[in-house]
């Protein structure tokens, strides 16, 4: 078969698939035309996401298929997928840094917006993609700037200080799964909407002899960082202008460090302390063993932290705070139809006077599903010649074109991931109903790794002690503040930032 025939068939196949996927409204251009400026020869390596398995997994099927289509249009370039043997993005990044120091980093790597914007990855490893995002995507007819293809909410997470080190692929939502039989037994007719109602229901469940709620607090357990983000974004909302240095959707490492230095993220700030006090008040209703399980672990995990869903499906506790991406797992555990779900309860003035009475549904979850990719630099990766870099960008432009992105994301998420490219075919899911509103500025703290993995680990250990009632509130507050101050100073030292410039 001649090359032109191959290209023509590929193009036909591509357009056919796009039409099937419901992308008729998208103006696509001929792949042959869009590929014309790529003349590289060689191999582009792509480090896969840890939680989607190897290239052969069903979750990566569409990604591989779209990639093979792109390869057929670029006969000189091969995309090689590298399995990701790690379980978290933190571990994956630690390996990336080591590889980069030897100039052996993969060309395209899995990232998450939080780790990229926090300063956890040394400068010089990832390429600033903004110059490319400001140019047209050749696979979309009439596109003036590639960046315009993203939903505004996603752009807000991607671009910080006119720089973009990560391309975002999909949105997802968190949700509380509850055991219907337990709710019935405790005479709870409908799920709680506010924190105040939530506490009442926790009491009802406990009185009915049921362990009410698993709040996982293992390292990487997810719930603590989600809770910190929820209450900080809500209770510190009125103080955002004092710390929002980067003027972006998400407070980055600098914002967080400044907030600590200004005693806004501090136990001396009653609004901040109120958040932890709310959690402390529900300690009697939390399931034990929280330091051994994670809300983010796969059900197949056989080392700590393990998934909370297995005991949940066994009826060991009534509620878990999880993600919509775990719906297929509950099905595989034979729990379909036995559980309901509701968004995390809103913290209102009925619970604390510091509530801003705003919806913070969108601050957890967000664009962290699948399809978060970064491009490494020539310094981190000696394989990446200028010609190959150009090819890699072209490949990414192909992936993040509306006619492709939706198929890929939907194929990976079992309906849990919502595409963030405008006009991309996607699935509607509970994630969308939770996350469709533009969230306020997301204030992230230490538990999400904003100030580095070391501070994150220390914070988890202190919180574990507090939640297991091993330490009192006063000691918790004291140790927490000491940890915050140290973390801010270490972050400033690592990132060569003079914090005093922002504090006084």
């Amino acid at each position, binding site marked *: 078969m001649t090359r032109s025939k191959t290209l023509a068939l590929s193009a036909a196949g591509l357009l056919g698939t796009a039409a099937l996927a419901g992308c008729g409204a998208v103006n696509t251009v001929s792949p042959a035309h869009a590929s014309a400026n790529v003349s590289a020869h060689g191999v582009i390596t792509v480090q896969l996401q840890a939680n989607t398995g190897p290239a052969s997994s069903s979750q990566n099927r569409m990604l591989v298929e779209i990639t093979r289509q792109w390869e057929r249009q670029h006969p000189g370039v091969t995309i090689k997928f590298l399995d990701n043997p790690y379980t978290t993005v933190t571990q994956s990044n630690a390996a990336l840094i080591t590889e980069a120091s030897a100039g052996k980093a993969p060309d395209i790597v899995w990232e998450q917006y939080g780790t990229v914007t926090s300063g956890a990855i*040394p400068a010089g490893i990832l390429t600033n993609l903004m110059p490319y995002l400001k140019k047209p995507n050749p696979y979309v007819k009439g596109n003036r700037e590639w960046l315009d293809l993203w939903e505004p909410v996603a752009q807000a997470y991607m671009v910080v200080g006119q720089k973009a080190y990560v391309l975002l692929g999909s949105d997802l939502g968190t949700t509380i799964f509850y055991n219907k039989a337990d709710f019935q037994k405790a005479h709870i007719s409908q799920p709680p909407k506010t924190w105040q109602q939530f506490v009442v229901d926790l009491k009802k469940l406990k009185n009915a002899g049921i362990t009410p709620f698993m709040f996982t607090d293992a*390292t990487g357990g997810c719930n603590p960082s989600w809770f910190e983000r929820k209450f900080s974004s809500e209770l510190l909302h009125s103080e955002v202008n004092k710390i929002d240095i980067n003027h972006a959707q998400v407070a980055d490492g600098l914002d967080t460090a400044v907030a600590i230095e200004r005693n806004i993220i501090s136990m001396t700030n009653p609004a901040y302390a109120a958040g932890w006090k709310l959690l402390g008040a529900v300690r009697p209703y939390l399931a034990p063993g929280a330091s*051994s399980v994670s809300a983010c672990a796969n059900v197949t995990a056989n080392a*700590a932290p393990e998934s909370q869903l297995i005991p949940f499906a066994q009826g060991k506790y009534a509620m878990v705070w999880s993600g919509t991406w775990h719906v297929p797992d509950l099905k595989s555990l034979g729990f379909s139809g036995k559980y309901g779900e509701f968004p995390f309860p809103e913290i209102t003035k009925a619970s604390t006077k510091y509530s801003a009475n705003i919806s913070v549904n969108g601050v957890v979850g967000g664009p962290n599903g699948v399809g978060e990719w970064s491009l490494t630099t020539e310094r981190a990766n000696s394989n990446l010649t200028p010609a190959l870099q150009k090819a890699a960008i072209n490949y990414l432009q192909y992936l993040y074109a509306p006619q492709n992105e939706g198929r890929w994301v939907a194929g990976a998420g079992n309906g849990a991931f919502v595409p963030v490219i405008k006009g991309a075919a996607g699935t509607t899911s509970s994630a969308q109903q939770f996350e469709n509103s533009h969230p306020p500025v997301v204030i992230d703290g230490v538990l999400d790794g904003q100030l580095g993995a070391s501070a994150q680990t220390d914070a988890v250990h202190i919180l574990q002690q507090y939640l297991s009632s*091993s330490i009192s509130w006063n000691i918790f507050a004291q140790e927490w503040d000491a940890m915050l101050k140290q973390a801010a100073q270490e972050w400033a030292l690592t990132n060569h930032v003079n914090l005093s410039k922002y504090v006084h």
Partner: protein
Amino acid sequence: MTSGKRQSRTMQFTLFAMIIPSLALILLFSYYPAIRSLVGSLTFWNGFDPPQFIGLQNFIAYFQMPGFGAQIRNLALLLLGGIVTLMVFPFLGAELTQSVPWMRVRRYVQWLFAVPMVVPQVILVAVWGYLLNPYDGVVDQMLSLFRVPPIQWLGNSHTALISILLIGFPWVTSLAYLVFLSGLQAIPQDIYEAARVDGSTGLERIWHLDVPLIIPQLRFVIIITGITMVQNFVPILLLTSGGPGNATAVPGLEMYQAAFSNSQFGFGMAIGTLLFLFMLVISILTLKFLKPQT
């Protein structure tokens, strides 16, 4: 020089030449990283940018970190517990094996005790993770027969460290068992005969004959057990990640997390250097005070 001597010289040289590749590889992969680690411990290094010399700051930072005291306490408890479990039980196992009067049965007992050693540690840890699972673990199910409520073995700060020590129960199947067994087998039978004539009991024989005569093996096992307990944070990494709180945090885990999770390679190397010095002191003291007896 006679041809015999020349041949002997050639043989010696050949043998020496055959050692050189091994020596070179050991120098490259064992000694060089150790020296590199010593130098690296004096630097701030994120693994990517060039290291910056910061003197002893990494060491000071480690001594001043909030969890330092808990890590040292946990390490001391693990060392103590490890020496008890990994020495006493294998020694008892070796004594019991030796006391079996029928040679064929004794050999089977040896095999039974030795074969479980082939199970990889990760598998053993995973199995114990299941056994101690608070919701459907076998240990809690057995205890429930005696109306003992479920225990959060790994999730409770009071029981987590004990649970780590529990791994491998009854602790007989270890290298120490084989070392003690070979030591006991090497004791000449006529000494036992003389003891029997003197009318010594079994316990007296163990205390006054066996223990003094296997001092070299005891020294070896103490040092190896010490090094194992200091270095081996795998069960903790897999089961508790140092938690809950700092209940199972140890310097080895801190070293690993600093380097491979937090990209604080200089800090990790500083902890590694301290652990090396610590074990060096323990080893020297063991060799000095635990002298072989005849």
